[in-house]
C-alpha cells in the first residue's frame, strides 16, 4: 500500500498561542500534515501548567491538557517579550506559510508586533489571529475564558436545568475555544485556497466571541423571525415554551436521551411494540392511544409509563434495543465508557500514542476520514524546548528552562 499522503505536508506553521483556541487550531493543521512549530516562553506555555496531569506528576511535560492540544508539534523556546524574541519570530516566519497568534491588541502593541504590517511585509504569509473578541472594537482587550466566552456569546443562555433558580451551567470541555478553533481552521483553509489562486496570503481575524454568537443554533433564528427567546431546559433544547423531559434514568442509574414525539405514528408504534416486547406497554396497547389527540391529552400517563419502562432496563440495553426498534435514542456515555464501545472498536477509532516512560496512551482518533489521503499518526506533544536548537541554530542559544529557573 502506498504511503498515506497528508494534504498540508510541506506547509510551515508558526504558533504563538497561549490558549486552547490557538493550540487546537495548530493541532488541527498538524494532523493534516503541516509542520507546526510552537513558540514558548522559557517557563513554558501557560497551558503546560493546567491539569489534569499524568500519573500524579505536576511538571510542565506531564500536563494532559498540554498533551491533548499539542500533539505532533515542535517546541521552540523563544520568549517574544525577551530581548531577541521578535527577531527569533521573524527568523521563523521567513519561510513560514501560516502564523497562528492569540495575542490581543494591547499585548501586540506592547511587544511591538503589528500584524497588519507583518502581513504586508510577508505577502505570502497567512497571519491567523485567534483572540477572545477579535482585533478591533470596544471589547478587543477584554479578558475571556471558556465560561466567559460561552456566556457573552450566547450558548450558555441555552444550557442548564429546568429550574431557573439554578444558573445556566457551562457545558463541559473547552467548547468556546473549540468553536473558535473550528472557524480558525475553516479560515486557514479558505486562505490557503485563495493563495493557490492568487499566490497571496492575508490577515485573518477570528473572534471567539463571534464564533460563539453564531453557534447558538435555534436561539438565533427564533430571534430573527418570531423574535422570541428560548429558555433553558434540562439536557434538551432550549425552547420558547417548555417541552417534556427527554432524559430517562435507567436501572443502572445511568441515563438515556429519548425525545418522545407523540405526533409521529411510526415512532409511536415502534415504541409501543418495544414496550410490549418487555411486557410493559400496559394501557398504551389500547386502541384509544393510537389516536394522536388522545395521546397528547393523556401525555402525563404516557410519560410516566415510559419512565417506568426505562427504570427497569440497563442503559446500554435500552440504547441498543431502542435503536434496533428504529427509535432515535442515545445513551449518555461517560468518557471511560467509550473505550469499550463496539462500534468505535469496529471502526478502529482510538489511536495509540507512544509516551516515553508510560508506553502506549489512548487518544481519540480522526475527526474525518478520507479515502485518498489522511491525517498524520498522532505523536506525543513535545517537551519544552525540544526543538529549539534545530529550529534556531544560528541564534545565540536560547535560555533553557533550567537557566530561566535559576
Amino acid at each position, binding site marked *: 500500500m502506498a504511503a498515506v499522503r497528508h494534504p498540508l505536508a510541506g506547509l510551515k506553521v508558526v504558533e504563538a498561542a497561549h490558549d486552547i483556541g490557538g493550540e487546537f487550531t495548530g493541532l488541527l493543521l498538524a494532523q493534516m500534515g503541516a509542520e507546526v512549530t510552537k513558540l514558548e516562553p522559557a517557563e513554558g506555555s501557560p497551558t503546560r501548567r493546567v491539569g489534569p496531569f499524568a500519573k500524579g506528576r505536576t511538571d510542565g511535560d506531564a500536563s494532559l491538557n498540554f498533551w491533548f492540544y499539542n500533539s505532533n508539534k515542535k517546541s521552540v523556546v523563544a520568549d517574544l517579550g525577551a530581548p531577541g524574541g521578535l527577531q527569533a519570530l521573524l527568523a521563523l516566519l521567513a519561510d513560514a506559510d501560516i502564523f497562528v497568534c492569540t495575542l490581543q491588541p494591547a499585548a501586540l502593541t506592547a511587544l511591538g508586533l503589528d500584524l497588519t504590517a507583518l502581513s504586508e511585509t510577508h505577502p505570502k504569509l497567512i497571519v491567523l489571529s485567534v483572540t477572545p473578541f477579535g482585533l478591533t472594537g470596544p471589547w478587543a482587550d477584554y*479578558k475571556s475564558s471558556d465560561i466567559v466566552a460561552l456566556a457573552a456569546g450566547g450558548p450558555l443562555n441555552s444550557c442548564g436545568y429546568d429550574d431557573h433558580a439554578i444558573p445556566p451551567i457551562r457545558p463541559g470541555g473547552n467548547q468556546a475555544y473549540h468553536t473558535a478553533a473550528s472557524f480558525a481552521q475553516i479560515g486557514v483553509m479558505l486562505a490557503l485556497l485563495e493563495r493557490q489562486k492568487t499566490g497571496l496570503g492575508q490577515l485573518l481575524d477570528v473572534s471567539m466571541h463571534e464564533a460563539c454568537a453564531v453557534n447558538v443554533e435555534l436561539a438565533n433564528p427564533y430571534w430573527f423571525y418570531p423574535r422570541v427567546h428560548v429558555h433553558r431546559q434540562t439536557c434538551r433544547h432550549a425552547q420558547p415554551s417548555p417541552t417534556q423531559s427527554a432524559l430517562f434514568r435507567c436501572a443502572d442509574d445511568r441515563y438515556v436521551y429519548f425525545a418522545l414525539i407523540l405526533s409521529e405514528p411510526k415512532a409511536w408504534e415502534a415504541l409501543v411494540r418495544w414496550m410490549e416486547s418487555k411486557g410493559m406497554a400496559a394501557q398504551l396497547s389500547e386502541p384509544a392511544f393510537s389516536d394522536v389527540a388522545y395521546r397528547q391529552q393523556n401525555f402525563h400517563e404516557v410519560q410516566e409509563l415510559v419512565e417506568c419502562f426505562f427504570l427497569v432496563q440497563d442503559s446500554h440495553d435500552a440504547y441498543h434495543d431502542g435503536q434496533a426498534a428504529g427509535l432515535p435514542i442515545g445513551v449518555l456515555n461517560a468518557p471511560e465508557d467509550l473505550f469499550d464501545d463496539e462500534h468505535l472498536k*469496529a471502526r478502529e477509532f482510538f489511536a495509540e500514542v507512544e509516551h516515553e516512560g508510560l508506553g502506549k496512551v489512548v487518544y481519540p482518533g480522526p475527526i474525518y476520514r478520507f479515502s485518498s489521503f489522511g491525517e498524520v499518526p498522532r505523536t506525543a506533544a513535545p517537551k519544552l524546548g525540544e526543538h529549539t536548537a534545530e529550529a534556531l541554530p544560528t541564534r545565540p542559544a536560547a535560555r533553557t528552562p533550567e537557566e530561566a529557573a535559576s
Partner: protein
Amino acid sequence: MPTTVARAESAAYAGPSRTPSARRGPLAGIRVADFCWMGVGACATRLLADFGAEVIRIEDRNRLDMPRRLPIYKGEARTYGEEDANPDPNKGGLFNNYNRNKLGVTINMRSPKGRALADRLIASSSVVTENFAPGVMERWGLTYERLSALSPEIIYARMSGFGHTGPHAEHRSYGPIVQAVCGLSYISGLPGEEPSGWGLSYMDNEAAFFNASALLTAIYHRNLTGEGAEIDVSAVEAGINLLGPILLDASVNGRTTRDGDFPTGNRLEHPDAAPHGVYPCAGEDRWIAIAVFNDTEWRGLVSVMGDPAWASEARFASQAARFANQDGLDALVGAWTRDKDRYQIMHALQAAGVAAGAVQTAEDTNDHDPQIAGRGLFFELDHPVIGEARFEGTPIQFSRTVQENWRSAPLLGEDNAHVFKNLLGVDDDEYEALAAEGAI
C-alpha cells in the same frame, strides 16, 4: 488591523435580482451537487456557498426539508410542537438561515428520469455532499465509484452521526443523540444531579464546521494532486475529540467519573480558578460569568466589590484557599452581584482586569452588543416571501477573501430552469416533460 471587511461589502451584492451569476471568492468555479438536508449538512455547505462555490441544493417536493416545515416564522410566535399542518415551504426561517447563497432545484429521486437528471448534475459537478441515513445514496446507486465514473476527481462528502462503517452505522441520530453517545452531555452538569448537557444541537454545528473543513482540505488536496476523495465524518467521533483532556484523564490515569463528584457544574477542576461561576444579577433570569485565575485578578475583583471585610479572611487568602472554599466564596460573590446590572459589573470587572461576561441572549448579541455591531457579524438579506431577514455571518474577518452574500435561500425549485436548462442543457420540451411527469 484589517481594513478590508468582506462583510461590509455584502449588502452591495444583495441587489434586487435573484438571478444567479458568476460567483466571487476562493471557491468560485466549484459546482456542488448538494443532497444535504436538515441542519448539519446545510450548515456545512453554507460555508462553501458563502465563499463562492455554486452550491445546488437538490430537494424533494414530496419530502420537504424539515427546516422548511418548522414553523419558525417572522411575526408569528408559535409554541414549539404546534406544527403548521400545511406549511408554506418558502416561509420557514430556519431554511432561510441555513441556505443563503445557494441555488435550489427539485428532483424526484424515486423517478428514473429524476435519477438520470441527478446523474447529469453530478457529471457537471466536482463535489457531491450528503447527510442522509447511511444506505439512502446507495439505494440510488450513488456510490463513490459511480460518482467517480460520472465525474473524475469527484469529492464525495458523507456526513452522518456514526460514520458509514461499523455495527451502529445505521443508528438513528440527531444532535442530542450524538451529544449523549460521544460523552459531551454526561460531562456537563452539577455533581450528583442529572446531567444538564446541552440546550442546543452543538454537535450539529460542530460536525458541520468539521465537515466544511474536510471539504476545503479535500479541495486543496485535489488542486495540488488532481486526486478526488470520499470523506466519511462521524459526528460522534468528532464529538469525542471535543472531550479534550477529560478523555486523556480516563485513558492515562484511569479516572472514573461516576463517583458522584463529577462533573463540577460551573467550577473548573483545572486550573484552580475561583471564583469561577455564573452569578445572579438584577432582573429576571439575568446572570454574569466571572472567572478569577490568580491573585492579581482576585485583587481586581475585591476592589470592584469595594473591599468587603470578608475578602480578607484567611479562607480566601490564596488562590488555593479560595479554590478550596468555593461554597462560601460563591455565596458571597453572588450576594454582591444579585442586585447589580449585569453589564455594569461586567465592564467594571473588565476595567479591573477580571474576565467577566454577561450571559447574553440572542437579542443581546444581535441588537445590543457593541462589540459585535462594530464588526458587522450579522447581516440582512431580502427574501421574496419572508421579506428582510437577518443572517449569522462568519466570525472571521479576512483582509483579502470576500464573502459574497448574493441572495437569501432559494424558494422551492427556484433555480430549476436556470440549472437544468442553462447549466445542463435540458431543452424546453424535455424540461416541460420532466415537470409534467413529476420528475422535478
